[in-house]
Structure formats: structure tokens, C-alpha cells
């Protein structure tokens, strides 16, 4: 089959690889009809997540049709012919983490738990197409994928919704929603979201759906801010204004009640010398993150507020504003999304028309043009917000 692979830092390549086969009894094989490129893929391609190998199949946002099921998948759970969206964390459904609905922390699905434990103190779940640290599972930017624990993760789509309407239930819609949910939003809350990428856009929409009084979008790409504005959010361009001052202006001097970091470890910074400091440290690997958005979110948040982090961090960061966090009673919440927890309720919100995930799709390309898709998405060319690939 054709599959998009990691072939070294800053290089992806669509190649021919073997078709997947059942390896565990609870596997299914899915023929992929739609798949997407994510900001998390950029961290892999840019080389900030260790344990990638030449030939690793990328992609963790995909859906399609079940064409084979293992002998351990009960027929009432999944059958050949079912149309499914596959959540990006692989979860067993039986361990204590799964029982607590902490699916991205599943204790059983990462065969390389030993590596993850060394990096993170405790292991994390397996994830499709997302380094060997999270298991070494082939991803879904491909014609077919093997889906372990197919009786637990995949969400059956039985209505007439299009792929484009439901594809993002695999990751970014639940992720944005979890970012907002962790904020424990009250009707009087002003919510500020750093990053107007796909994840940020869905965090903003979710904050509105959860009842926020006002939602602010922070980014530097005018077209992404414009997209947020069209959806009813207030744009702040960090290239043009001082973010903290602007946020004070927009909130009567209080600062946002809740702040969401939807940027992660590759943030860019308006202030050249701080940006240079972090770039150098990141380059010599004495710091693995450039946490500008996170720092700014903590410093901007109202005392007693919540800073919710859905942007990805992988290792160690520097100059963490611990004083602001501690002295001003801030709550920091975070996590790789526990996608399985949100798929059904969010599907219902899509069916009811409360959320329209298609609004962020700017490009649809054949799988064979994945490399061009990555370039456009990474370099913000042609007003690219989200790329859907068709195998």
C-alpha cells in the first residue's frame, strides 16, 4: 500500500510499504477513506520528539471502513463493513487508567513502555504514527491501518454525515473540547486561547459551546485570526500588539479568567532576545521546548484562574514562571486528549449542528501529495489551516 513516512528530520515521503495484518486478536484492519495532517505531526517532522525512525508511517487522525476483524473482536462491537472514526490514543479499556477514562494514559498499550518510563517517569499509552516512545505503531496517513483494541476505540458512524464532518473526532475536536472542559467554564468567563491552528479553533468553539462570555484568539497569522473572527471570536495578533496589555484592555484590567495553550513546544516569540535564548537552548538540547505561549498564558491569567495546556510538550522547559503560578493561585491542567471519552457526546453535538468541524478545512489533497500538504501546513502557505488527505 501507499503510506506517508518519516524519512529524517524535515522530510516526509510517500512510499510503498506492506499492507497491515492482524497481529493481536482484538485488532481490526481499516481501509482509510480520509486522514489528516496535525500540528503534532509537525513536532515529529521538525525533530522535537525523540525515537522517530526512517520509514515510520505517520498519521493519527483517520477514519474508514473495517475490512477485517481479529477473532477477539465481538460482533456486537465491530463488524466488517462498519464505518469508523479511530481515536489517536490506543486504549485497552480494562486497566485502571481506562477505568478512570484516562485513555491516553492506558497502562497496557505501549510495548515500549520502558522507553516512555525513562522519559516521563511513568509510561503513556500507545499512539498511532507518533514515535517509538508511544509504542512504534504504524500511523494512518496510509491506505490501510491496523487498529489494536478495535472493540474499545473506534466510533461507528451510522448516520449520513460526511467524512469531513466526523474525521476530526479522531483527535483535534475532542482535544480542543478537552482544553475548554478543563477550564471549568462559568458564564462570566473570558477565555483566551493561544494558537489559532486547528486545535485552537476547536478550543475556541468549545469554550463558546460551554458558555464562555467572551473568547479571545491569539496568533500571528492574519488568516488564522480572521478564521477565528469569522467564527465569532476576538482576534489578537501578537506580532502587532503586546499580548498582556491587549488582554487587560479586553477584560477591564482583570486578565482572562481561563487561558488555553493550544501552541505547544514550538511557539514563536515576539521578543527577539527571549526567542533567541530558547532557540539556542533547544538547539543544544539543554531545553527541549520553546514555551513562550505557556509562559505568557500563566502571566496573563487572572489570579485564581485556570491555565489549560493542550499544546504538546515532550521534555524539559526553562524559565517556568513558578512564582506567578504559585503566588496567584493558578491551576494548571493538561493532558494528551482522552479522545474515547468525548467521541460520542461530540458526535451528537455535530449532529445537532452545535459544532461545525468542517469550517477549518482549507485543503484536500490525494495521499500522494502529503509532502506538499506538510509544506503548506508548516509554512502557512496558501492560507493553509487544515489538510485532509484522501488515500
Amino acid at each position, binding site marked *: *500500500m501507499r*503510506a506517508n*513516512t518519516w524519512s529524517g528530520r524535515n522530510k516526509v515521503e510517500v512510499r510503498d*510499504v*506492506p*499492507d*497491515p*495484518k492482524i*497481529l*493481536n*486478536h*482484538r485488532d481490526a484492519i481499516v481501509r482509510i477513506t480520509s486522514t489528516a495532517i496535525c500540528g503534532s505531526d509537525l513536532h515529529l517532522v521538525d525533530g522535537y520528539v525523540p*525515537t522517530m*525512525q*526512517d*520509514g*515510520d*508511517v505517520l498519521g493519527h487522525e483517520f477514519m474508514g471502513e473495517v475490512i477485517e476483524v481479529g477473532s*477477539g473482536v465481538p460482533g456486537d462491537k465491530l463488524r466488517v463493513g462498519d464505518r469508523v472514526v479511530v481515536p489517536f490514543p490506543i486504549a*485497552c479499556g*480494562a*486497566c*485502571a487508567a481506562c*477505568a478512570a477514562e484516562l485513555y491516553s494514559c492506558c*497502562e*497496557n*498499550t*505501549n*510495548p*515500549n*513502555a*520502558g*522507553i516512555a518510563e525513562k522519559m516521563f517517569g511513568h509510561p503513556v499509552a*500507545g499512539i498511532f*504514527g507518533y514515535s*517509538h516512545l508511544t*509504542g*512504534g*505503531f*504504524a*500511523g494512518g496517513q496510509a491506505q490501510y491501518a*491496523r487498529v*489494536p*483494541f478495535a472493540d474499545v476505540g473506534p466510533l461507528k458512524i451510522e448516520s449520513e454525515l460526511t467524512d469531513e464532518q466526523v474525521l476530526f473526532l479522531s483527535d483535534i475536536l475532542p482535544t480542543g473540547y478537552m482544553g475548554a472542559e478543563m477550564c471549568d467554564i462559568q458564564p462570566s468567563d473570558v477565555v483566551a486561547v493561544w494558537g489559532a491552528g486547528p486545535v485552537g479553533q476547536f478550543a475556541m468553539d468549545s469554550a463558546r459551546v460551554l458558555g464562555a462570555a467572551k473568547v479571545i484568539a491569539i496568533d500571528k497569522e492574519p488568516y488564522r485570526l480572521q478564521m477565528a473572527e469569522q467564527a465569532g471570536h476576538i482576534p489578537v495578533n501578537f506580532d502587532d500588539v503586546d499580548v498582556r496589555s491587549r488582554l487587560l484592555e479586553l477584560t477591564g484590567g482583570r486578565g482572562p479568567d481561563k487561558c488555553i495553550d493550544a501552541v505547544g513546544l514550538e511557539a514563536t516569540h515576539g521578543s527577539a532576545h527571549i526567542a533567541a535564548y530558547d532557540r539556542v537552548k533547544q538547539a543544544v538540547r539543554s531545553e527541549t521546548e520553546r514555551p513562550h505561549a505557556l509562559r505568557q498564558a500563566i502571566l496573563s491569567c487572572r489570579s485564581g484562574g485556570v491555565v489549560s495546556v493542550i499544546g504538546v510538550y515532550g521534555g524539559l522547559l526553562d524559565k517556568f514562571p513558578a512564582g506567578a503560578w504559585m503566588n496567584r493561585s493558578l491551576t494548571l491542567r493538561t493532558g494528551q486528549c482522552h479522545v474515547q471519552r468525548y467521541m460520542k457526546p461530540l458526535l451528537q453535538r455535530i449532529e445537532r449542528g452545535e459544532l461545525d468541524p468542517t469550517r477549518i478545512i482549507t485543503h484536500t489533497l490525494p495521499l500522494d501529495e502529503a509532502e506538499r500538504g506538510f509544506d503548506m501546513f508548516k509554512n502557512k502557505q496558501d492560507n493553509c489551516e487544515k489538510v485532509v488527505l484522501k488515500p
Partner: protein
Amino acid sequence: MDLTATTTVRKPASEVYAFWRDLENLPTFMAHLEEVRAAGDRTSHWSAAAPFGKDVEWDAEITEETPGERIAWRSTGDADVPNAGTVSFVPAPDGASTEVYVSLVYEIPGGSLGKAVAKYFGEEPHQQLDDDLRRFKQVLETGEVVRSDGAPWGKRARKEFPQRPAQPLSDAELAKGAQA
């Protein structure tokens, strides 16, 4: 060499105990074992897998068993690698899970066998036992050892990184299996 490791399995102690007490189950998750055959009620015959040094076999006996709580065993006769172990099962505070405490003792011999065994355990000997217990937990909680494309061979996945790329296996690789 003394090794200890622990894990928590989300099953009642009686079930976790019963799985271990059936010693023939041990090779499904312990990487250094090829086969364990029960001989009598308390006696068994064990054989090691290639990475531990080929053709290493020994007899063992259970020296203590308290159902649902504790099992102890040791090798008997003139075993090449004399060894003993105990495992205790303790109900976890959550009321649903069982804490499993394992302790193993190996008398590493001299010569080439001793070298093979030392090489198997490597610089972080407890890592092997940690991985054994992770698979033990997988088997009890999910039914089998979980495989990925990067680490497709279950307990035979000895090398952590680099591994084979995370892309599907070819028919030839699948046919060759862990030996590939």
C-alpha cells in the same frame, strides 16, 4: 543476583494468584523462559529461551503456597543457574486491583553460561523483570501481549531502540517471526 519488581493488576487476588500458580503460564510473559512443565503437584521442569543461554534446563519445586497470597519456589538438583523466587499478592486500596510483588534470586555461574546470563540482564537487570511484569499485566487485563509494528514480537522484543520501523510487516518477516 537479587531482583525485585512490582506491578498492580486490575483483577482480584484469587485470579491473579491462580494464573501465576499455573506455572506453565510463566513463559507467556517471562522473556527468559521457553517452557515450564508441571511434573507433580509442586514439582516442575523449566527450560530457558535462547537469550538466556541455550539448552539450560532445571527442575523446581514449590516451597510455599498460600492461596491468593503467596507462592515461593526454588530450583532443585544441580541446576546450571540455581534460582529461587517468591511472589506475593496483596489487595490494592482501590478494592478492585491486586498488587504483585516479585523477588527473584539467581546464582550466576562462571564461564560462558555466566556470561550469557549476565549479558541477558545487561546493565539494568531489573528492567527485564519490569518488562516481564508489564506483559503479565497485559495478559491478565487484556488477554495477550500487545504487539506494535516497531515491537512486533511480544516478549521477544528485546531491543528497545532502534527497532524495526513503525510500518507493517512483510509476509516474509511475518513468516520468519522473532528470528528475523
